[in-house]
C-alpha cells in the first residue's frame, strides 16, 4: 500500500475526519489522487475481508482526480468535500457500473445515469471510489440472518464473527474500518441507525424528503431516506450540506436545503431533552447496562434540561410493517409474481415478500391513518421537547454465521423512549443521528438523538457536543489484514 506524503501518517489517515483531510489537501500535504489511491487500495484489499465491497469504482475515480488535483494546484478551493473519497450503498445508481441492490437476481443490473446524490457530490468534487454491499433489497420482506446479501454476510470490523448490521452493512463497515472517509446509506426503518451503532460510527438519517432518492432503489415510497455514515457528526453535516436540496425528480422531495451553521446553534442549556432513565438502566441487555448508565451521566453533565419522557402509546411495529410490506409488494409486484423472487438468498425474505401480496387496501389505509395519528402525537410531544435520546439498540450485534436470535430477552413492562423509537421516528419522517458511546466486549454501542422535522442542525449540534466531551468516536477497530 503506497504511503502518502502527509503529516497524517498511514495509521491516522484512514480515520481522519473530513476537515483534517481537507486541510491536508489545501496545504498540499497530499493530492486528491494520492488520497483516492490510498483509500481505493484499502477498499479493494480490505473490504472483501468484510464482505463490504460490491464494486470498486477506482477506474471512474481515475478519470476525474486529475481535474481535482489541478484545481488544488491553482488554489481553487470549492468546499470541504473537494478531493475527499467516498463510497455509496449499492442501491444508489452509478452510470455504467453494476447496481445490484445486494440481490442475485439483479447482479447484472446497470443504469444509464447517476443518482442525484452522486451528481451533487460530483459537483462538490468529492471522489467516488466504491459501491458498498447491503442486505438484499434493503431487507424488504424481512430476513433471518446476515447472509441475506449477494456479497455474503456483512462482517463487523470490530469482530469478524459478528454482523455489521443492516441493511447498509457495507457502508457502515467501510467507514468503521477506515476504507472510506464517508459513505452514503439508506434507511426505511433502521438501516442507517442499526449498522451505524453496531459498527461504532456516526450515522445520520435526515428528515424524509430532505435528500433526493432519485436513482436509488425504492422499498417504501413514503419511508425511504438516504443518509450518511462518517467518523463524526460534523463530517455528516458537511456531507448533508452538499446532498440535501430540492429535486424535481424525487416526488417525495421536501424542496428544502440544509445549511450547516455550526455557529448558530442553540445553547445546550436551552434544550429540553426527552429521555427515560429505564432506557439506559433496565432496557438494554444486562452486559451493556453499565456502559449505558455511564452514557446517561455524561449526557446529563452536558447541561441540557433533562425531561423524563415516554413515547406516545401506539403499535408502531404493525403500522410500519404493514406500510413497508404493502408498498414493497407493489414496487416488487412483477418480481414476486414472476418467481424471480426465488433467486434471493434468504428464505424468510422470499416468504415475506410473497406473503406481503396478501395485504388489503384496507390494511394499508388503516396503517396510513394511524400513521397520521402518530404524527399528530409527535407534533404535540415536540412542543414540549427539543430532542429525544435513547440507546440506538438495546443489544450487541448478532453473530454473522447464525440465524438471528428470535428469543425475546426479558425486558421491563414499563416503556420509556427507546422501545419503538426507530419505527416511530421513521413513520414521522424525523431526523436522527446515532453516535458511538462505548465498547462492550470489544463491540460498539450507540446512542440515538432524534429531533422534529428539519432539525438536523440541532441534533448534529448535540451530537457534536457529545463527541467534544467523549472519545468513543475516536476509537477504531483493530487492524484488518486482507
Amino acid at each position, binding site marked *: 500500500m503506497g504511503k502518502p506524503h502527509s503529516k497524517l501518517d498511514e495509521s491516522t489517515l484512514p480515520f481522519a475526519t473530513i476537515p483534517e483531510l481537507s486541510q491536508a489537501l489545501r496545504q498540499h500535504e497530499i493530492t486528491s489522487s494520492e488520497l483516492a489511491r490510498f483509500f481505493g487500495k484499502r477498499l479493494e484489499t480490505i*473490504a*472483501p*475481508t*468484510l*464482505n463490504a*465491497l*460490491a*464494486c*470498486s*469504482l477506482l477506474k471512474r475515480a481515475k*478519470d*476525474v482526480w486529475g481535474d481535482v488535483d489541478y484545481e488544488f494546484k491553482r488554489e481553487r478551493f470549492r468546499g470541504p468535500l473537494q478531493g475527499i473519497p467516498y463510497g455509496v450503498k449499492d442501491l444508489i*445508481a452509478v452510470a455504467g457500473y453494476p*447496481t445490484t441492490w445486494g440481490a442475485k437476481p*439483479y447482479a447484472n*443490473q*446497470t*443504469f*444509464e*445515469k447517476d*443518482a442525484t446524490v452522486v*451528481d451533487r457530490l*460530483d*459537483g462538490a468534487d468529492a471522489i467516488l471510489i466504491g459501491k458498498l*454491499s447491503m442486505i438484499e433489497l434493503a431487507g424488504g420482506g424481512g430476513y433471518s*440472518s446476515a*447472509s441475506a446479501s449477494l*456479497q*455474503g*454476510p456483512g462482517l463487523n470490523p470490530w469482530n469478524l464473527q459478528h454482523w455489521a448490521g443492516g441493511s447498509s452493512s457495507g457502508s457502515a463497515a467501510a467507514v468503521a474500518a477506515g476504507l472510506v472517509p464517508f459513505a452514503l446509506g439508506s434507511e426505511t426503518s433502521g438501516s442507517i441507525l442499526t449498522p451505524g451503532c453496531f459498527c461504532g460510527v456516526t450515522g445520520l438519517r435526515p428528515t424524509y424528503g430532505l435528500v433526493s432518492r*432519485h*436513482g*436509488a*432503489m*425504492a422499498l417504501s*415510497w*413514503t419511508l425511504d431516506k438516504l443518509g450518511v455514515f462518517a467518523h463524526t457528526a460534523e463530517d455528516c453535516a458537511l456531507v448533508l450540506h452538499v446532498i440535501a436540496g430540492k429535486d424535481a*425528480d424525487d*416526488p417525495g422531495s421536501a424542496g428544502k436545503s440544509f445549511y450547516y451553521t455550526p455557529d448558530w446553534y442553540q445553547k445546550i442549556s436551552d434544550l429540553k431533552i426527552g429521555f427515560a432513565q429505564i432506557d439506559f438502566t433496565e432496557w438494554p441487555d444486562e452486559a451493556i447496562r453499565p456502559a449505558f448508565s455511564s452514557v446517561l451521566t455524561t449526557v446529563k453533565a452536558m447541561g441540557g434540561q433533562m425531561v423524563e419522557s415516554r413515547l406516545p402509546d401506539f403499535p408502531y411495529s404493525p*403500522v410500519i410493517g404493514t406500510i413497508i410490506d404493502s408498498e414493497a409488494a407493489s*414496487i416488487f409486484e412483477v418480481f414476486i409474481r414472476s418467481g*424471480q423472487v426465488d433467486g434471493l438468498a434468504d*428464505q*424468510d425474505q422470499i*416468504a415475506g415478500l*410473497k*406473503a406481503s401480496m396478501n395485504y*388489503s387496501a384496507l*390494511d394499508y389505509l*388503516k396503517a*396510513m*391513518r*394511524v*400513521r*397520521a*395519528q402518530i*404524527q399528530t402525537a409527535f407534533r404535540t410531544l415536540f412542543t414540549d421537547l427539543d430532542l429525544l435520546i435513547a440507546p440506538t439498540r438495546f443489544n450487541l450485534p448478532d453473530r*454473522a*454465521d447464525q*440465524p438471528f436470535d428470535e428469543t425475546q430477552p426479558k425486558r421491563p413492562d414499563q416503556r420509556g423512549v427507546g422501545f419503538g423509537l426507530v419505527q416511530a421516528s421513521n413513520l414521522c419522517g424525523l431526523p436522527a443521528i446515532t453516535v458511538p458511546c462505548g465498547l462492550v466486549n470489544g463491540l460498539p454501542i450507540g446512542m440515538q438523538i432524534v429531533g422534529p422535522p428539519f432539525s438536523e442542525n440541532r441534533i448534529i449540534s448535540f451530537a457534536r457536543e457529545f463527541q467534544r466531551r467523549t472519545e468513543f468516536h475516536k476509537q477504531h477497530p483493530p487492524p484488518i489484514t486482507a
Partner: protein
Amino acid sequence: MLIRLGVYSGLPSSFYNVGMRFLSAPGSQITRRRLAALLGATPLAAQVPVPPVTQNTPPIGTPAAPRAGATPEEKLKKANDGVREMSARLSKLEVAMDTEPAFVFKP
C-alpha cells in the same frame, strides 16, 4: 415521469429509482466532471467493457444455516400468518372517521 427502464438484464422493473433524467432535461446540471467524461468519451460502439473489481467470491465467513425444521412452505405459511396477525391488530385500532391517511396527493 417515474418509470423508465434502466439498462438491465431481463428483469422487470417498476421502481422510482429508474426514472433517470437525461442530461438535456430542464434543470439538469452538467458538472465539470460529467462534461469532461463526455468530451473524452469514445463512441459507445468502440468501448470495450472492462469488468470492475467486485467482491471476492465466495464471500468470507460461514453463511448462517437456515433455521432448523423450516421448509420454504412452512416459512411461507408463517409469513402469511404474520400478515393475517398484522391485519387483525390493525383492525382493532380505532381511528376517527375524519382522519385522512398520512399522504397527500399533489396534482
